[in-house]
C-alpha cells in the first residue's frame, strides 16, 4: 500500500467513525494540554544557552564566586544629596529595600558602602553614610573626597553630585529557604496575599486540622523549629587538614526564573512609587528591569496577535469558502494544535522565550494551510455535484500526499533551527516542527469526521466559478513562463546579480532597548542614566593566577591599574565606557590613608606591604572581600561599566579587552570575560552562525524531499531555486534598507523556506501528475496542473500574508518588521513558484529531449 492509499484510508475511516475519531483527538489534545499548567515564560539572558554551554558554564561559575552581575540600578536625583535630610530618606529607602524585596542578594548605596579616612593620626573605618551629620550638610572636605573618589564616582554618585545610585542585586540561585523568605516578604509587602499558600501546604494544613478535630483539640499551626540544616552549622569542621578535591561537574544550580525576577522588580517598583518625590526623583534601569519590560511587551503582544490572527483567519475563510463549517473546523484544529503544542512545551520544561512567543500566531497561520487545501478541493468537488464520500476520497487522493510532504518540508524548515547554539532558537525549531505535524494529523482526522457529521453543501456553481477565478489569475503567468523560459531564468539571474551588493551590506543587531518607542519610560531612564554615569551594563573580567596570594604583588596590581586605565580610556564606537574597578581601588585608598606621603592612585611597592594593607580591607568581612576576589587572593574581578548599546558592538569591544588582558597578564594567568554582556554578545555571534547553518540544513532537507517527491535529482534540486530566491531578494532588500538580522529576522529564511516550499510541492506535484500520469504535453500539463492548485495556493498565500502582516501591530519593532518581511517573502514565493517552476519544467524537458536525440 502506497502513501496516497494510506492517507485516503485514514480519511475515509475517520469519516465513517466520526464520533470515535473526534473523541480520540480531543482526549489526546486534552492530555497534551495538561502541560499548559507547567508552562512558564523566561526571557532572561542566561536562558538563551543550553546548560552545558561553555559560555553559560563560565557565567554560572562567575555567579557562584561573585554573585549576580546584572544589577538593578535605582538612580535618585536630588539637589541636596549631601544633606542630613537626604541621608535619612536614603537610609529609610535602603532599609525598606533590604527588608521587603524578595530574592534580594544585596543592596549598596552611599548609606552602607565601605569608607576609610585618616583624620590626623587616627584611621577611621566604617560606612560612608556615617559621615553624614544628623543636621545640616556633610563637610566640604568629605564631599570633595566622595565626589572624586574612584570607589564611588560614577559607581554610586555622579560627578556633579546630583545623582546617586542604589545598586540592587538579585540572588544568582534559588534555594528552599530563599523561596520561603521570598514568600514571606511578598506576603508582607502585598505582592502576594498571605492566604495564598501553596496547594501542597493547604493539603497538609487541612489534614492537620482534621486530625485536631478528631482528637477534639484546637488546631495550632506547627511552630518553626531549628532545622537540621542550621544545626549542622554548629558542627566543628574536623577535616581542615585534609586536602580539598576539586570537581569538574556541570553546575545544575537553578537560577532565578523570570517570574521570580518579576516579583523582585515588582517589590522594587512598589518602594519606588512610595518614595518618589520632587527632591527624591527615582529612575530605574539595569538588565533585569529591561528584561521585564520586554517580557511584559511579549505577553501583551502574544494576546493581541493571536486574537487578531484568529479574527482575520475566520473572516478570510468565510469569504473564500462561504461555509461556517469551513470556518470553525480549521479553527478548532488550530486551537487544539496550539494548546497541545504549548502543553508539550510545559511538559518538556521549555519556557516561552523571546523567539517561541511567535509560536501561537505562527501555528495558527501555518495550520490553516492544510485545511484550506482540503476544504477548497472538497467544496469544489461537492460544488460540481459529487457525493460526500466520492468528494472526500478524491480530495485526499489529490491533496493528501502533497499535504504530507508540505508538512514534512515545513517541519524540516523548523528543524533546521535545532542546530542553533542558542536555546530559544533550537527549542523553537523542535516545537514548531512538532506543532506542524500535529496540525497535519488533526486535519487528516478531524476534517473528514466533521464533514461526515455536519456537511450540508450542495451543488454550488458559484463556488466553482469563484475557485476558477483564482486559476485564471495565475495560469497566464505560468503559460508565459513556459513560452519564455529563457527570459524568466535570465531574469532570475539578473535579480541574483543585482542582489549581491545588498547581501554584502547585511548587518546584525540585538538591542532590546530599540524595541521600545521613544516615549517608553524604560528607554528614557536607561539612556539618561547612561548619559550621566555610563553604568547600565557591567562587563566582568576575571584574571585567575591559580596561585594563593597570586594577585597580591606590586607587579600584578600595576598591571591591574594599567588595564583599568586602558579600559576607561577606550573610545569604542557608540559604547561609552564608564568606571572600571577592582581590588586595586580599595588598596589605593588604604595606602593613601595609611601613608601620608603617598599620592592618590599609588599602590604599595612591596608584596609584603600589599598583604599587610589588605588586612585592613578584610575588616569588611567575607561579604566584602568576596565581591572583588576569592579568599585565597588568587583571582581578581574587574568590573567594566558600559552604556547600553547594540550587542554587536560589545562583540568587538569584548575581543579587544580580552586581547589586552592577555597581553598584560601573560599566558600563565587564565582570563575569563563573562557577564550579561558576554552572554548577549555571544548570542549575537551565534545568531550569525546559526542563520548560515540553518539555511544550509533547511536547503539540504527540503532538497532531499523534493528529490524523493519528484523522483529526479537535478530537477528536484533546481526546484529549490524558486524557494531560495524570495529569501535572497528579501535579505538583499534588508541590506539595501539597513534592516539588520536580529533575533526575529534570523527566523525569516527557515520559516519562509518551509512555507514557500508548500507552493512548490503542490505545483510540481500537480504538473508532474499531468505530464507523467496523463501523458499530456508540457503546455497542457502546466495549464491543467496550475489551474488545479492555483486557487489553493493563492488562498493560502493570501491567508498567510495577511496573518504575518498582523505582526506589524506588535509593540516590538523588530517583530513588526519581521511580519511585514515574511508577508513580502510569501508573495514573492508565489510569484517565483508560478514563473520559475514552469520555466524549469520547460528547461528540463529540453534537456531530456536533447539527451534522447
Amino acid at each position, binding site marked *: 500500500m502506497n502513501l496516497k492509499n494510506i492517507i485516503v484510508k485514514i480519511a475515509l475511516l475517520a469519516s465513517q467513525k466520526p464520533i470515535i475519531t473526534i473523541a480520540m483527538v480531543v482526549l489526546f489534545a486534552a492530555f497534551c494540554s495538561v502541560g499548559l499548567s507547567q508552562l512558564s515564560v523566561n526571557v532572561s539572558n542566561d536562558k538563551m544557552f543550553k546548560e552545558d554551554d561553555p559560555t553559560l558554564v563560565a557565567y554560572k561559575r562567575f555567579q*557562584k*564566586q561573585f554573585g549576580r552581575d546584572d544589577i538593578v540600578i535605582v538612580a535618585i536625583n536630588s539637589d541636596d544629596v549631601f544633606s542630613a535630610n537626604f541621608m535619612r530618606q536614603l537610609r529609610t529607602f535602603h532599609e525598606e529595600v*533590604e*527588608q521587603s524585596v524578595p530574592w534580594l542578594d544585596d543592596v549598596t548605596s552611599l548609606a552602607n558602602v565601605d569608607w576609610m579616612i*585618616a583624620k590626623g*593620626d*587616627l*584611621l*577611621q*573605618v*566604617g560606612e560612608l553614610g556615617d559621615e553624614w551629620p544628623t543636621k545640616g550638610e556633610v563637610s566640604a572636605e568629605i564631599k570633595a573626597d566622595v565626589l572624586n573618589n574612584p570607589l564611588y564616582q560614577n559607581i554610586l554618585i555622579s560627578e556633579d553630585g546630583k545623582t546617586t545610585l542604589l545598586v540592587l542585586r538579585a540572588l544568582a540561585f534559588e*534555594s528552599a*529557604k*530563599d523561596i520561603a*523568605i521570598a514568600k514571606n516578604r511578598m506576603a508582607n509587602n502585598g505582592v502576594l496575599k498571605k492566604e495564598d499558600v501553596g496547594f501542597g501546604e493547604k493539603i497538609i494544613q487541612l489534614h492537620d486540622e482534621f486530625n485536631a478535630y478528631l482528637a477534639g483539640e484546637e488546631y495550632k499551626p506547627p511552630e518553626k523549629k531549628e*532545622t537540621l*540544616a*542550621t544545626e549542622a*552549622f*554548629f*558542627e*566543628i*569542621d574536623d577535616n*581542615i587538614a585534609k586536602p*580539598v578535591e576539586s570537581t569538574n561537574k556541570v553546575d545544575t544550580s537553578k537560577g532565578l526564573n523570570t517570574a521570580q525576577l518579576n516579583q523582585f522588580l515588582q517589590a522594587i517598583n512598589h518602594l519606588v512609587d512610595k518614595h518618589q518625590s520632587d527632591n527624591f526623583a527615582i529612575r530605574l534601569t539595569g538588565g533585569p528591569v529591561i528584561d521585564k519590560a520586554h517580557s511584559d511587551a511579549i505577553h501583551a503582544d502574544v494576546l493581541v496577535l493571536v486574537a487578531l490572527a484568529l479574527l482575520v483567519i475566520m473572516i478570510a475563510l468565510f469569504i473564500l469558502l462561504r461555509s461556517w463549517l469551513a470556518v470553525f473546523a480549521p479553527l478548532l484544529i488550530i486551537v487544539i494544535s496550539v494548546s497541545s503544542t504549548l502543553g508539550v512545551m510545559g511538559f518538556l520544561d521549555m519556557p516561552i522565550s523571546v523567539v517561541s512567543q511567535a509560536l501561537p500566531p505562527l501555528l495558527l497561520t501555518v495550520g490553516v494551510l492544510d485545511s484550506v487545501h482540503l476544504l477548497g478541493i472538497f467544496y469544489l468537488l461537492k460544488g460540481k455535484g459529487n457525493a460526500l464520500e466520492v468528494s472526500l476520497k478524491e480530495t485526499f487522493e489529490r491533496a493528501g500526499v502533497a499535504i504530507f510532504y508540505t508538512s514534512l518540508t515545513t517541519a524540516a524548515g523548523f528543524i533546521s533551527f535545532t542546530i542553533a547554539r542558542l536555546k530559544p532558537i533550537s527549542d523553537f525549531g523542535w516545537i514548531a516542527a512538532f506543532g506542524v505535524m500535529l496540525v497535519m494529523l488533526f486535519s487528516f482526522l478531524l476534517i473528514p469526521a466533521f464533514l461526515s457529521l455536519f456537511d450540508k453543501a450542495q451543488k454550488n456553481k458559484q463556488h466553482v466559478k469563484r475557485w476558477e477565478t483564482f486559476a485564471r489569475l495565475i495560469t497566464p503567468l505560468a503559460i508565459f513562463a513556459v513560452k519564455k523560459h529563457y527570459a524568466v531564468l535570465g531574469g532570475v539571474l539578473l535579480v541574483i546579480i543585482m542582489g549581491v551588493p545588498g547581501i554584502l551590506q547585511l548587518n546584525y543587531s540585538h538591542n532590546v532597548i530599540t524595541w521600545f518607542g521613544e516615549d517608553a519610560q524604560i528607554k528614557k531612564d536607561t539612556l539618561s542614566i547612561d548619559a550621566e554615569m555610563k553604568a547600565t551594563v557591567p562587563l566582568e573580567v576575571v584574571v585567575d593566577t591559580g596561585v*594563593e*596570594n597570586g594577585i597580591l604583588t606590586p607587579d600584578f596590581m600595576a598591571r591591574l591599574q594599567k588595564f583599568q586605565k586602558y579600559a576607561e580610556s577606550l573610545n569604542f564606537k557608540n559604547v561609552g565606557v564608564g568606571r572600571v574597578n577592582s581590588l586595586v581601588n580599595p588598596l589605593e585608598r588604604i595606602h593613601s590613608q*595609611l*601613608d601620608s606621603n603617598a599620592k592618590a592612585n599609588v599602590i*604599595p611597592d*612591596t*608584596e*609584603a*606591604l600589599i*598583604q*599587610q*594593607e589588605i*588586612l*585592613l580591607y*578584610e*575588616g*569588611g*568581612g*567575607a*561579604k566584602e*572581600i*568576596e565581591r572583588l576576589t*576569592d*579568599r*585565597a587572593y588568587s583571582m581578581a574581578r574587574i568590573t567594566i561599566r558600559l552604556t547600553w548599546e547594540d550587542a554587536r558592538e560589545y562583540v568587538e569591544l569584548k575581543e579587544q579587552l580580552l586581547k589586552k588582558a592577555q597581553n598584560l597578564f601573560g599566558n600563565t594567568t587564565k582570563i575569563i570575560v563573562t557577564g550579561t554582556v558576554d552572554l548577549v554578545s555571544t548570542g549575537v555571534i551565534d545568531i550569525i552562525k546559526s542563520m548560515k547553518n540553518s539555511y544550509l540544513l533547511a536547503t539540504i532537507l527540503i532538497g532531499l524531499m523534493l528529490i524523493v517527491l519528484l523522483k529526479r535529482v537535478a530537477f528536484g534540486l533546481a526546484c529549490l531555486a524558486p524557494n531560495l530566491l524570495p529569501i535572497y531578494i528579501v535579505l538583499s532588500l534588508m541590506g539595501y534598507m539597513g534592516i539588520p538580522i536580529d533575533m526575529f529576522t534570523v527566523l525569516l529564511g527557515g520559516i519562509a523556506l518551509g512555507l514557500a516550499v508548500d507552493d512548490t510541492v503542490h505545483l510540481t506535484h500537480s504538473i508532474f501528475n499531468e505530464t507523467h500520469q496523463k501523458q499530456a504535453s508540457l503546455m497542457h500539463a502546466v495549464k491543467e496542473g496550475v489551474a488545479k492548485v492555483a486557487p489553493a495556493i493563492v488562498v493560502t498565500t493570501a491567508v498567510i500574508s495577511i496573518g504575518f502582516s498582523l505582526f506589524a501591530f506588535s509593540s516590538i519593532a523588530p517583530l513588526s518588521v519581521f511580519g511585514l518581511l515574511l508577508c513580502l517573502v510569501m508573495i514573492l514565493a508565489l510569484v517565483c513558484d508560478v514563473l520559475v517552476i514552469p520555466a524549469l519544467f520547460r528547461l528540463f524537458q529540453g534537456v531530456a529531449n536533447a539527451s534522447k536525440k
Partner: protein
Amino acid sequence: MRTLSYLYIFCALFVVTPSVAENSANQFMKVVDNRDRGKTSEIISAVVLIDKGNKRTKRTIHVLNKKYGKDEKNITFLTYPPRLKNTGFLAYDWANPNKANDAWIYLSNLRKVTRLATSNRADYFLGTDFTYGDMERLEVEDYEYQYAEKKLSKEGFTVLDATPKSKNIINKYGYKKIRYWVDDKKKMTIKAKFWLKDAGWIKYFKVSDIKNYSGVWVGGKEQMVLTKEDKKVHSTVLLINKVTINKPLDDTLFTTHGLESGR
C-alpha cells in the same frame, strides 16, 4: 567600654563563673564576664579561613594579654605567612564604660603605627568571621539578657538570649540578637548564635577540645560559621597550639613601642 581582649578569641569567647545560682539572667552574665582568667596569658594559634568553595587559608598568631586591675591590655602579632610577620595589633580595654577603647595597628613594611578608631566593633578581625566585638569580653551593660523559653538545652547547657538595649548598640556590634549556650559544669559558653543586623545573615559559634590550664578553661578548637539564608558563606577555625597562663610579661610589651619591636 573596654578594649579588645584578643585572648578570648582563643581561650573562650564567652566564659562563666562558678556560680550559676543567680536569679537574674543579667546577673548571671555579669558573673560570667567577671570570672578569673589569670593575670597574664600567652597563646599561639593557627587561624584557618575556609571559603564557600571549601578553599582554606592558614595564618598563625601570637597573642599576649595582661590584666591591670579591671583593665586589660592585649597585643597580637601575626607570625605566618612570612609577609605578614611582625604585623600587629595593640588594644587597651578600659573597664570604665565612659572611656573609649584604644587600638593601634602596626604594619612592619610601612614601619608605622596607626591609631584605629574603635567606635565600630562590627568590623571583622584579620579577615576571620570574628568581629572585634566578638573578641572583647562581654559588654554586659549593652544587652538585656533573658533565659530562653527552654532554659536547659538537651545537652544540659543553660540557654540565654541577649537583646541589644538600643539601635546604637545594634550598629556598634552588628547584631540584633544573640543566643548563648553555657556549660555550667565546664563554666564556659559552648555555643552561640548571632543574628546580624543585615536580614538573613546568621553566625554560628562553637568551641570544643576544652582543657584546663592553671585553673582557666581554654577551648582547643573554636569555630565561627557565617551564613546567609542558611547557606554557608565563610567559616573560621582557630586551633590553639600553645597556652601559657600567669607567665610574667613586661609592661613595655603592651605599648606602641612594643608593637613596633615585634615578637
